[in-house]
């Protein structure tokens, strides 16, 4: 049984990795030999296939976390499944769902190859640079924090000037931080179920291992600072927390929580870590929900708040709603995949698809509570009475 599950899970991931190559950008000259244009010519089929993969990944996710919770899978099985997840998605095409990885590469090139300040000089100013053909934010100054920009030098130099090697180096960095975050969650929770909630969540794995977003690094650093606080290494915790802020700025919202922890330590009082995780979840969720004010509610921003709720699985309703939301956020990609445009009905469909699973799960949670069930039934009963009057 286990073996079949492992094989099926591995096949789903490999299938998704293979499928991701249907999305190769026509301007990506380095991949021209394997460019098919399939995703752009068969939009309906591709959207259906994508939805099937997402559904399969969520079914696998629910099955794995249930198996871990019921002790059917032990730590060795979980480690093996994490290995399958990493290998299965490492060779995928990273710009299937987002072009951000190209921005990382291009920004690193501005600093480490052209020796220019990416906060002042836009990639588009390097006329004739082949990266401009496929970089979608070439007309923007660096969007990320200095720690990320400096750190992106590691994969940039690992690539040694070869585009594909550089691209894979960026993927490797994301993979390493995904594994490190999994290990850290194990250290923080000492609970296999918590680890599984994070390690196999389709949104986490797609945004970290397929799209290779740097959000996983920011989250790793903030969790590491919490871990260091637990081990009374305050100065180091402060430095790491600062580094996390300077990856993508979002964790700045956790500053009051961090100050509260330092104050508690100063007073010699114990910290209720469950509350810390809960308020961190709420803070990161708020900043996530405010993200449309800046640009758009991008699915990978969910990596900011999901790890915190996974650390407190006791809050079942919020956990279920968060998992449903992560499913809905991955559905947000479908309207664009189908229509090929960000305009028209696409924005509305994105909102509907992202919120639909949350509404369904929310409704089922409410209907399972006797108080709410009675209220809902009362509501239904009132209508015929009014009519009869």
């Amino acid at each position: 049984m286990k073996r079949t599950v492992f094989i099926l899970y591995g096949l789903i991931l490999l299938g998704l990795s293979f499928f991701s190559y249907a999305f190769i950008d026509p301007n990506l000259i380095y991949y021209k030999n394997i460019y098919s244009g399939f995703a752009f010519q068969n939009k309906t089929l591709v959207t259906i296939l994508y939805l099937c993969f997402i559904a399969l990944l969520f079914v696998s996710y629910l099955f794995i976390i249930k198996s871990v919770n019921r002790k059917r899978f032990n730590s060795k099985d979980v480690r093996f499944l994490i290995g399958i997840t990493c290998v299965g998605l490492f060779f995928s095409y990273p710009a299937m769902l987002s072009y951000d990885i190209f921005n990382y590469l291009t920004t690193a090139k501005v600093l480490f190859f052209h020796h220019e300040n990416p906060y002042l000089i836009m990639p588009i100013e390097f006329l004739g640079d082949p990266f401009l053909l496929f970089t979608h934010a070439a007309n923007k100054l660096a969007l990320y924090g200095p720690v990320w920009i400096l750190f992106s030098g590691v994969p940039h130099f690992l690539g040694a000037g070869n585009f594909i090697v550089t691209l894979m180096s960026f993927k490797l960095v994301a993979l390493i931080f995904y594994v490190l975050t999994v290990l850290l969650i194990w250290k923080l929770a000492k609970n296999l179920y918590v680890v599984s909630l994070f390690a196999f969540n389709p949104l986490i794995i797609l945004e970290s291992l397929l799209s290779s977003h740097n959000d996983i690094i920011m989250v790793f650093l903030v969790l590491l600072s919490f871990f260091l606080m637990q081990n009374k290494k305050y100065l180091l915790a402060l430095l790491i927390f600062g580094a996390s802020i300077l990856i993508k700025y979002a964790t700045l919202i956790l500053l009051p929580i961090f100050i509260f922890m330092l104050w508690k330590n100063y007073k010699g009082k114990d910290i209720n870590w469950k509350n810390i995780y809960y308020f961190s979840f709420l803070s990161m969720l708020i900043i996530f929900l405010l993200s449309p004010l800046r640009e758009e509610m991008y699915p990978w921003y969910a990596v900011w708040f999901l790890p915190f709720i996974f650390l407190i699985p006791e809050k079942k309703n919020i956990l279920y709603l968060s998992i449903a939301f992560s499913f809905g956020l991955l559905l947000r990609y479908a309207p664009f995949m189908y229509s090929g445009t960000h305009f028209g009905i696409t924005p509305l469909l994105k909102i509907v698809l992202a919120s639909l699973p949350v509404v369904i799960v929310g409704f089922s949670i409410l209907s399972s509570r006797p108080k709410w069930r009675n209220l809902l039934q009362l509501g239904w009963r009132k209508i015929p009475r009014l009519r009869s009057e």
Partner: protein
Amino acid sequence: MGMAQKEFRVESLELRMRKIFLVILFLLALSPHQVFAESSYVLPYPSSMPGSVWYTLHLVQERLEKFWYFGNYGQFSYNLKQADKYLVEAKTLFEYKQYLLADRALGKSDEYFQRLPYYLENAKKENRDISAKMQLLKDASSKHIEILTSLKKDLPDTFNWKPERKSATELNLKEKIENSIKIRERIKSRMTYGFEL
């Protein structure tokens, strides 16, 4: 004199009147006011002026920014920004007849402006396509020349600046502005006809 001849005379008179009218129109178009070749390049607003506390802070900021604007394109942006800033400062000070300060500001603008081709040459050596930056510098030169030419006609040729309890300074304003224009014209022609590396 026949009728046909009379009609011919009237027609030729009309033709002559029309010609005269066109000549007058042409002469009116060449009215005495001077017309400059206007550049679309936009100069910044004047920032704080010498004597203000903010001016000292701006000088510190200017020094620090030099390190932030690293790289050939970075330095190009930095020097162009400073050249523009000091030109606007000089213009404002000239208009307020603060000739000594204006003269110094123009000197700084010249200094920054003269450095610009160096960074573009370096960028070219790195095999970068600098055509857009060359056009930018050409536009900036035109704008600077436009401002300096308009300043030149309103300023005295020389001015004896005599501060209290200090020795007087003879400012050769016309020569200074002409020199600034020459610097920019030289750079503009280099941008038009290319670098000789």
